């Protein structure tokens, strides 16, 4: 069951226990295990690879400094995603304030490249991907984060709720609203129904 993943068990628990004693290599292992998931969320929220990597590093640093107070009610992955999400939101707010003051600045505007996709496929999918990227960009942050956590990270609603700091019911509503927006905006990318 997915909900079982909420509990702190298995290798993460061992690594965490070691990291709490000051074992930096154990914490490094935790970083390597979960950095990719955190980066996926951060890069989608921030639409900038550099900013995303910065936020991910901050998130793991904060987590390391707060290890003593981590009670293990949620999984380490949920915890780190939660921190990443909040830091990314802070970044978005700061960026909004900057833009209000200095006008809209540029960011790289591209998500991290997908190594699995070959050049031909990448080119063919580029238009669709760009459109989808724009639609995702326009989603409210919580809807976007909930959708990404659900679809790309495969988290259960209870875990999505833990990351966003809300209830599972609200998480479901966010995902539902995000899907509705996608449906409205991406009709032309979807095949005909059966």
């Amino acid at each position, binding site marked *: 069951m*997915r909900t079982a993943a909420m509990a702190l068990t298995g290798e993460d628990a061992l690594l965490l226990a070691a990291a709490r004693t*000051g074992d*930096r290599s154990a914490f*490094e292992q935790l*970083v*390597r295990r979960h*950095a*990719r998931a955190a*980066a*996926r969320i951060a890069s*989608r929220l921030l639409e900038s690879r550099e900013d995303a*990597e910065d936020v991910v*590093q*901050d998130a793991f*640093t*904060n*987590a390391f*400094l*707060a290890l*003593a*107070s981590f009670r293990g*009610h*949620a999984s380490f992955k*949920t*915890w780190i995603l*939660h921190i990443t999400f*909040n830091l990314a*939101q802070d970044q978005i*707010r700061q960026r909004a304030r900057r833009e209000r003051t200095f006008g809209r600045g540029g960011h790289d505007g*591209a*998500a*991290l*490249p*997908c*190594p699995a*996709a070959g050049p031909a496929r990448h080119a063919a999918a580029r238009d*669709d*991907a760009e459109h*989808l990227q724009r639609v995702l960009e326009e989603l*409210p942050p*919580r809807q976007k984060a909930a959708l990404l956590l659900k679809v*790309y990270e495969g988290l*259960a*609603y209870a875990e999505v709720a833990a990351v966003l*700091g809300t209830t599972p*019911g609200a998480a*479901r*509503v*966010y*995902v*539902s*609203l995000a*899907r509705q927006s*996608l*449906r409205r905006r991406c*009709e*032309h*990318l*979807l095949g005909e*129904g059966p």
Partner: protein
Amino acid sequence: MKRPHKVGCRAWRGRLLLHVDGELPAAPRIAFESHLEGCSLCREAVDFHLQVEELLHRSCGLEPDSGFEDRIAAGVLRRIDAAAPSGAQTAPVARASRARWFLVAAAAAVALLLSRELWLPCFLPQPGRGAERSDSPLACAGTPPAPADAVAPARLEAARRAVYDALFQAGCAADYRGEFELRTASLAAEDWPIEGIVVAAIKAADADFAAAAIRGAAELSLTAAVPALREAALRAETAPAALVALGQLAGDQEVDRLERLLVDARLAGPAAAGLARGGSPRAARTLADALARPEVRELALTALLDMGNVGLGELLRRRAGGDAFAAQALAARDLPSSEQVLELLSACADPEVLEAALFYAHESGARALPALSALFATPRLRRAALDAVVRIGGAAALYTLLGAGVETDARAGGPHAAAARADVRLAMVRVLRAAPDAPRLARAAARGPWGERLVETLLCANGTLRDCLAAVFADRECQPARRARAALGLAEAGALDGPRALGTVFETALLDQDAAALILCAAARAGAGAEHVTLLAPLARSTAEPLLERAAVIAARWRSDGEPPLPCEQARLARLLAQALPRV
């Protein structure tokens, strides 16, 4: 191209997304999948969501490059070194960090509270969500919201309007909960505490808005709203809605208060509705007591009937106990219908109410028979329902049982089928024994499509229904095969006049030779001998010969089976045939 609105059918909409996300537990998943097979609307909705998922996965430009982990790990370790030069001192560093965050958070909280104090008394006091938030995994590492955002007047006004719209519009919708969640989702996205807002909105000065919030609290089962609802019940303009909601949310806790309000002409309606919403047996008793008061009798009856089985059961129970007001109330509405009795009997676990319903069924006669017959297949209720049918009695009861017997046979194979058939058959015997005109009843039923079943029942009655068997045998309009079986039953019971039976062979032989042969055998068993064989004289030789051969075959079969219905008559029959054939 405009696509249809793919949200599935209303009843299953809540499960659709959970199914797509693979979060539906086994039992509802199986139910939903079987629903999907027959529902194109839901199938299309599921397909659509899967296409959206595929679209998202197709755009996979999110995966970091291969050296990503190395970069992140190195960067994190560098930052940790910068924050805490000695890795062994992680814990003290964490405490210092937490203390720092606590100060920032406290400052922000004070700013937030101060800012909200300025406007919340007007409309939306901030409810506490501290406990919920304290469990957040970010309690030690998050960042507080920017105070500037919380005090922006435009944002507050927008939120106020959004909550108003959500409550008011959702209050007008059939699916309140779904509508409300959708409409308040954007507020939840901004961290507005929706449940607290509903409680606060109940106290709003705008009566329409408060009433919408009260309905919302009831629909959302917001028990935290009970104190606010009690306050709202004291306000003239919100009292009706609040009383109804209180009955639903507080249940038995509010029964006394609502009962007292039944005397208030202005609030009696909402109070009765509140009791009905509560739906408890105690509320039903309170409403049934109110039937004695003419000024609220109609309200109480309506509320009782709104309660469904609980209310109807209470009415029937009182009626069975001789309560004249309950009897009047039921009679005035011509209640209950056979469908209501059926539903009540099927769902009711209270033996007292069950007895009352069956008593009602007995009193209401043939009207209740369809409802009762539907219970024959339910082992728990079958005998009680059959008893009620027997008490109703008469032709209608007999035909109901005959029809039920056929249905029971159609479902044969279940573990209770044999027991059900036996019970139904016994009930038929009891109906016939109790009927003053049983022979006439049996004769009429034997002619009908269920005649075989009737004769079979008569044969199982251990000879107690000989007059019915005789009536069937004597009926020339009855099918010969049924008459023959009746003749055999009479012969076994020693109630057949053999020579007279021989006289009927002529009339049946023309229609059914097998039946005539059986009657011949029955007559032989009942004492018809060679001296009576002249009674077969009207038969043509071409008819008589095969008939007698058939009778001989039947006798031989009985002999070879070793279970002779006529063990001591075989020699007599053989002798009869030997003598009769040359003479005919």
